[in-house]
């Protein structure tokens, strides 16, 4: 089914590809949030009953407690809600209601038009370092149901304020590993641990791992400095948003993404080739040499 869908879109790529790629890159710059449509999702207390309501609730449980409700599908210890605060309900924290209404759309990441299910599949494959779930798997259907319900009343084809993370201005000075290390030690290690491995109570994730085997892999959006810095500026620390300056957000992103993490599942066998194919931007540390280690190189 996925192959058919992909084939059907091939024809229009030639005409629309360049335009869409530009539109995608420039999306956050198109117009300021004030000119986009505001949207408020329904309160969780309004969740419906019945079979559909059960799916929505299951989707919420998967989203908030991924390591428990989707343990067989993921390869790390992250919950979706670690990067989408408030269970995917909050503006400027990757809200599901804005994502749901933004697809199908062209994605430069895979140079295809993706529907929302394909987008969710990528979340599990990269950010959760997991499997490529079938489009009709109960997990995907439940998270889709939860997203759809959160988007109740939202228009399609309109830019919603608060989608993704607010685009961060360029840093005054180039992002710096040493400055980032100092920021991390002072403001992040408290929760995420000096080793970036996160913290757990009775095996349950409380603070997510920012690098290492329990974290997102090199194919995840967060492995791009611009995404991580934008997230951190608008969302961290919990209860103290605003503590990080723009420069600090870029610096600490540089530091965090200068550590090893699970391999990009699209790895071709060569780190240099994989970088060229999937990570050829100034925002990716993949393939860079940091502290004598080539990031993304296979380990023995």
């Amino acid at each position, binding site marked *: 089914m996925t192959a058919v869908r992909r084939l059907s879109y091939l024809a229009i790529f030639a005409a629309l590809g360049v335009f869409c790629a530009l539109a995608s890159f420039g999306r956050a710059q198109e117009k300021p949030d004030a000119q986009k449509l505001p949207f*408020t999702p329904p309160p*969780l207390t309004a969740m419906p009953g019945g079979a559909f309501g059960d799916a929505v*609730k299951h989707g*919420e*449980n998967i989203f*908030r*407690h991924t390591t*428990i*409700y989707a343990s067989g599908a993921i390869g790390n210890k992250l919950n979706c809600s670690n990067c989408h*605060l*408030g*269970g995917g*309900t*909050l*503006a*400027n*924290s990757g809200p599901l209601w804005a994502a749901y209404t933004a697809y199908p759309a062209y994605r430069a990441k895979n140079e295809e038009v993706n529907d929302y299910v394909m987008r969710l599949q990528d979340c599990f494959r990269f950010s959760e370092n997991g499997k490529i779930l079938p489009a009709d798997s109960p997990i995907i259907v439940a998270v889709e149901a939860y997203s759809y319900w959160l988007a109740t009343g939202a228009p399609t084809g309109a830019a919603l304020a608060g989608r993704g993370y607010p685009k961060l201005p360029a840093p005054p000075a180039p992002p710096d590993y040493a400055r980032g290390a100092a920021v991390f030690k002072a*403001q992040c290690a*408290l*929760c995420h*641990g000096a080793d970036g491995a996160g*913290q*757990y*109570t*009775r095996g*349950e994730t*409380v*603070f997510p791992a920012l690098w290492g085997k329990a974290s997102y892999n090199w194919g995840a959006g967060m492995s791009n400095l611009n995404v991580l810095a934008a997230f951190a500026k*608008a*969302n961290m*620390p*919990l*209860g*103290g*948003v*605003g*503590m990080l300056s723009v420069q600090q957000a870029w610096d600490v992103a540089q530091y965090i993404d200068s550590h090893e993490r699970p391999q990009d599942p699209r790895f071709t066998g060569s780190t240099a080739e994989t970088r060229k194919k999937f990570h050829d931007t100034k925002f990716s540390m993949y393939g860079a040499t940091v502290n004598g280690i080539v990031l993304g190189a296979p380990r023995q």
Partner: protein
Amino acid sequence: MVWLAIFGAPAFAAPPDVASCSSCHGADGMGNMSAGFPALAGLPAPYLEAQLTNFRTGMRANPIMGGIAAHLTTAQILSIAAYYAALPVPQKPEPAPLPHGPGTALALDGDWNHTPAGVPPCDSCHGPFGLGVGETFPRLAGQPKAYIAAQLADWQTGRRKGGPLGLMGHVGGKLTAAQIDAVAAYYAALSPNPPRLPKPGASG
């Protein structure tokens, strides 16, 4: 006495400094629910050290504890903290059904008001069922309601200051009196050491 028999006396031999602590915090370190004195048993030693130090410096303003801590040496603080951190927390199942209401909602879902700058769920830093996390984030589960409520009020008024990154000052300041009352009741009703954790989310 059972613990002495199982683990041998030395591990739990009380240093002389804790004699004055146990009159309020209990010989077992589990506090006094009706009087509102918090349990200290099983709390992380670095957290307990920081609290005694803060009582001594006035970062935590409390007439009783301030007076006691003023006379403690750093060595005594370390010894007391290590003693209580090592005390066992009695096992007790979580209540069934689990508490349900506005306190539960604040603990599990927060009060974000649609923005990441809102109030995050208490559990997001104090751990599942308020059991605490690591060396810095204390257990709230099973603490006296009056104690939890008083601490949140103290964060609001500045009688309790500092803490890691000043986070509780930020968070506590945003809570209403009704939220404080509800969330204090929620955590007071939970077990400080459940043998197993209920599956999250299921209680709706």
